[in-house]
């Protein structure tokens, strides 16, 4: 005899086993692991991008006949990649067998530590990028013209004193504001993930407090 969908529905749910709810536990277990996994993926892509981008100064240095300067810039960028790789190893070693809250707090600690480490490095890298870029432009395009136009008294190593002072001030400012610049940069790339992390931790803490 044919049945109706209504009768199948009713009959099927007479059996209460069909309505057994899953246990509400480890609510964030998967979420926290997925979150960190996604961060690792993005972080790796970012490191790869920096690693590839670092060939740029080397190439430009070669073309502009300032290979030494290009190499310094490339090496400093590759150091950023090296540091990131080292940190990535630590991140991958985080203990997943802990509770999801502990896991995400460990990750948060790692993130703060990594950002602090990078901030210290960027205090040197940002000014270095400015100084070396200026030197490259000066050496490749402006050197001869400047020497012809300025009298030697207003030049130091063939560079106008005023220009040197401006670059020096710029370098100092970059070093002083390295943290802010780096945070701005990080927020552009990982802003939404950081927001999610803060929300997740706040929610997990609220959940823990209510238990």
């Amino acid at each position, binding site marked *: 005899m*044919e*049945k*109706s*969908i*209504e009768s*199948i*529905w009713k*009959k*099927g*749910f007479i*059996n209460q*086993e*069909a*309505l*057994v*709810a*899953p246990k*509400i536990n480890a*609510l964030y277990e*998967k979420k926290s692991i997925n979150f960190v996994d996604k961060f690792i993926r993005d972080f790796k892509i970012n490191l790869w991008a920096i690693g590839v981008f670092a060939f740029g100064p080397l190439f430009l240095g070669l073309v502009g006949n300032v290979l030494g300067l290009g190499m310094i810039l490339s090496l400093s960028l590759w150091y950023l990649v090296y540091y990131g790789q080292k940190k990535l190893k630590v991140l991958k070693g985080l203990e997943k067998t802990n509770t999801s809250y502990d896991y995400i707090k460990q990750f948060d600690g790692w993130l703060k530590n990594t950002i602090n480490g990078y901030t210290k490095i960027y205090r040197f890298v940002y000014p270095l990028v400015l100084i070396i870029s200026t030197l490259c432009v000066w050496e490749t395009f402006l050197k001869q013209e400047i020497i012809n136009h300025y009298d030697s008294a207003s030049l130091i190593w063939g560079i106008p004193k005023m220009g040197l002072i401006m670059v020096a001030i710029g370098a100092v400012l970059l070093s002083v504001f390295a943290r802010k610049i780096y945070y701005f940069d990080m927020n552009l790339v990982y802003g939404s993930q950081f927001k999610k992390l803060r929300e997740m931790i706040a*929610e997990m803490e609220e*959940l823990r407090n*209510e*238990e």
Partner: protein
Amino acid sequence: MSSDFYTTYIQPHSGIIIKICRAYTNTQEDFEDYYQEVCLQIWRSKDNFQQKSDWSTWVYRLAVNVCLTLLKKKKNNVQNFASDYLPPEMEEESKAFQDEDLSLLYDAIRKLSEIDRAIILLYLEEKSYQEIAETFNATSNNIGVRIKRIKERLKKLLHGKVN
């Protein structure tokens, strides 16, 4: 989420939440994730409940919305999730119910569009056309016609095993 909140406000409606989550998932793992996410969303949004409707209606709407959102997210990652084709291994896993007919009916419901799934679930839960219409901002007549079409489609999907 306190166990009190779960026991008082969620557990009495766990049946409908389970039925909804089953209709939007193909595996036990997904089902558990969706169920937990719905519970979490109810807890998160509890302060937004304005008593304009019953708590149960509110829970129902929220559960459907959460499932649709999760499905959308999943669709971005996995293709063909809600299509007429289910990979054999998923089809196998979808047999979550001991009752074979119910299992087949669920498989057929999963092949409906997301909104049709929500409508037919309400219909099967014996909500009136008026209530369903209010939930979907439609008229009772439209809902009636739509339900008729959904039932015909289900009949086809079940190869005429139902009337």
